[in-house]
Structure formats: structure tokens, C-alpha cells
């Protein structure tokens, strides 16, 4: 396997996690992963070895999600899958599932621009600077979206003052 594919394979667990925090739904998340990997394989030539592959992949995934979300919201309200969260049960336990469902539900209420900032910084653990680059926004925009998203989540999750 070429080095590119190998590195990409190693990133898949993190990409699945990012996809899940964007989409709230296990099946949608894996569809998004598939589209992202397809796009990455096609665009492979434009990735510069030595630069961060994770940032490059997060960016592709985020843009792919915007595209699909846009076309879906035109069609209908997002369908809320009843079994969202159930797939964690494959290896997880009931407690983990409940924790994820609560957080998923709170994340779902955020506007996209706040959710993606929260996902990159709080879930994926990226530095502000890297998240701002992936989202193609200035640092000030990132921090203001991030702080609003977090305050909304705190209120939802019972962490309010």
C-alpha cells in the first residue's frame, strides 16, 4: 500500500469521529466518510507530502458535508433517525451510548458554523489556529463561533451558570 493510503487508513478512526459529530447519525457519518475518502483519493495529487494530512482530510470532509447538507435541506427537513447512536453498541456499553446521545442531541441544535468549530476544537482537539485554517476563517471568527457554540451547549447540557 502506498504511504498516502496507509496514512489515510490510520486517520479513519478520527475521521469517523469528526463525521459523527457533524452528522449526529452513524449511517450518515459513514456515508460522509466514504465520500471524503473518494474525494481524497481523486485529489491525492494536490496534497503536499510533509504537510498535515489530518487537516487536509478534515477540510475535505467539512466541505463535502456542507455540499450534502445543502442539497438535503432543499429536499426536506433532516430526518432524525430513531436508531441514531445505536451503532456505538457494537463495542460500547449502554452508558457510553446514553452519554453520546445526550451530547449528539445538544450538538444537533447548534447552527452548522458553530457545530463545526466545536467539533474541531473540543472533539478533535485541534488548536484554534488549525481549526481556523481548516474552516478558512480568521481566528476572531473562529473564537466567536466557538464561544457561542459552547455557551449554547452548556445551557443544553445543564452546565449553565
Amino acid at each position, binding site marked *: 500500500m502506498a504511504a498516502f493510503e496507509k496514512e*489515510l*487508513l490510520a486517520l479513519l478512526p478520527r475521521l*469517523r469521529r469528526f463525521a459523527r459529530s457533524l452528522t449526529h447519525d452513524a449511517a450518515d457519518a459513514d456515508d460522509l*466518510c466514504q465520500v471524503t475518502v473518494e474525494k481524497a483519493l481523486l485529489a491525492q495529487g494536490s496534497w503536499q507530502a510533509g504537510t498535515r494530512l489530518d487537516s487536509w482530510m478534515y477540510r475535505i470532509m467539512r466541505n463535502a458535508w456542507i455540499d450534502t447538507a445543502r442539497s438535503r435541506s432543499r429536499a426536506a427537513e433532516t430526518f432524525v433517525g430513531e436508531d441514531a447512536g445505536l451503532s456505538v453498541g457494537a*463495542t460500547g456499553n449502554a452508558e*457510553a451510548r446514553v452519554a453520546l446521545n445526550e451530547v449528539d442531541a445538544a450538538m444537533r441544535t447548534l447552527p452548522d458554523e458553530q457545530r463545526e468549530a466545536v467539533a474541531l476544537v*473540543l*472533539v478533535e482537539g485541534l488548536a484554534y489556529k488549525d481549526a481556523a485554517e481548516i474552516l478558512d476563517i480568521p481566528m476572531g471568527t473562529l473564537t466567536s463561533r466557538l464561544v457561542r457554540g459552547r455557551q449554547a451547549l452548556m445551557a443544553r447540557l445543564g*452546565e449553565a451558570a
Partner: protein
Amino acid sequence: MTIEPEMLMAYADGALDPLSAKRVERAIAENPALADEVARHRRLKVRLASAYAPIAEEPVPDRLAAMLTSNVVPMQPPLRQRSRLSLPLWQSAAAMAACLVVGVLLGRQVDQGPISATEHGLYAAGPLASALDRQASGGDGAVRIAVSFRATDNDFCRVFQSAAADGIACRDAKGWALRRTMPGSAPKAGGGYAQAGSSDAELMAAAQDMMADMPLDAEGEKAAIAKDWRSR
């Protein structure tokens, strides 16, 4: 002095330069409500990181992995061997082995530095030990403390980041025992590639597993520092 919500959040994340961090600390000293807000930011971070952590630990579905491995040359170990059930085990064993190696290497390299290898295992020493003893969570410096909590075995533990190592240290009778160590992620001079992503989320998830209840807030931390982190 007013502190913007963005600045307070950045302080909670350890993302401020030392000068701004000092400004925030002065404001916090005057207004305890700000300390609560910092604690809320940190608790939210732990909660989100640990809620999504299981996804990254699941085996990757075959159809996704196959997109990258379908042209595999025969030299490559067959991916199928990592069956659905054995993958997480294999992963955690590898991660554990990596932690041990890092720990042992660190112990050897820097016996007089931040970590010392004793007959009872790895313990924090020098600047790391004093930061764990006295430093409040958040803020900037050579050592950053992300969060403090009481573990299910009743010891106090703290998640730390430093240039030499990241990890979880728990206070026992002999000092700060290192329960987890990973390569350091704290920014090195020049802003090199810090592995914040993986180690941060992994440590937070590990911490969540160890916690008896919620992380300590600023008050709880202060009280623990005053009692020298004695839990009993």
C-alpha cells in the same frame, strides 16, 4: 477590567499567550464567577471529548477500509486478520505498549528532569511535580494542567501537558504516580506540529473513565492544593 468571553474560553483551553493569561488570572482573582466559567468550559470539553471517543475506538467498517486497501500488495499484513472483535483489543494493547515505551524512555532519559523511574514505577519529579502540586488548571507555562479530579480509588489525579510528556498523574503516598504517559504536546518553540488531536482526546477519555464524579472546580482545586492533595 473586562475580560471578553472569547478570552476566558481561550484561557480555559490553555490557548492564550503568557501575557494575556496573566491578565485573565488577575481578573479571576477579582471575580470568582470567572473561575466558575473557566471550570464550566473545561467540564464541557471533557464531556464532549469523552462522549465521542468511543467512535474513534470502534473498528473501521470494512467497506471504508477496503477503499484504501483493495490494491494492497501481498507484502502487507492482511487487514482481515484484525477481526471486528480483536481490533479494539489490539489497538489498546498497542497503545499501552507505546505508553510503556514512552514512559520507560522518558524515565531513562530524564531521570533528573520531570520524570523519575523508581522501584514503584514512574513518578513526576522536578518542575512537573511542583506544577502538579501547586498549579491551578488552565493557564500557560511549561506545564499545563488540563483538569483535576478524584479517581474511583479516591486518589486525586490531574491531566497534564508538557513539552516532555502528556499524561495523567495521581497523588499517592510517594508522590505523583504517572498512570498514563504520551509524547508531549505542549507547544514547542517555533510552533512545531503538536499532536494535540489524538493525545488530548485520548487522555480526556482515559480521565473520564477514572473519574469518581465531576472534575474539580476552581474551589475544589484550591482546597485540594491547600491539603497537599491528600485524599484520606
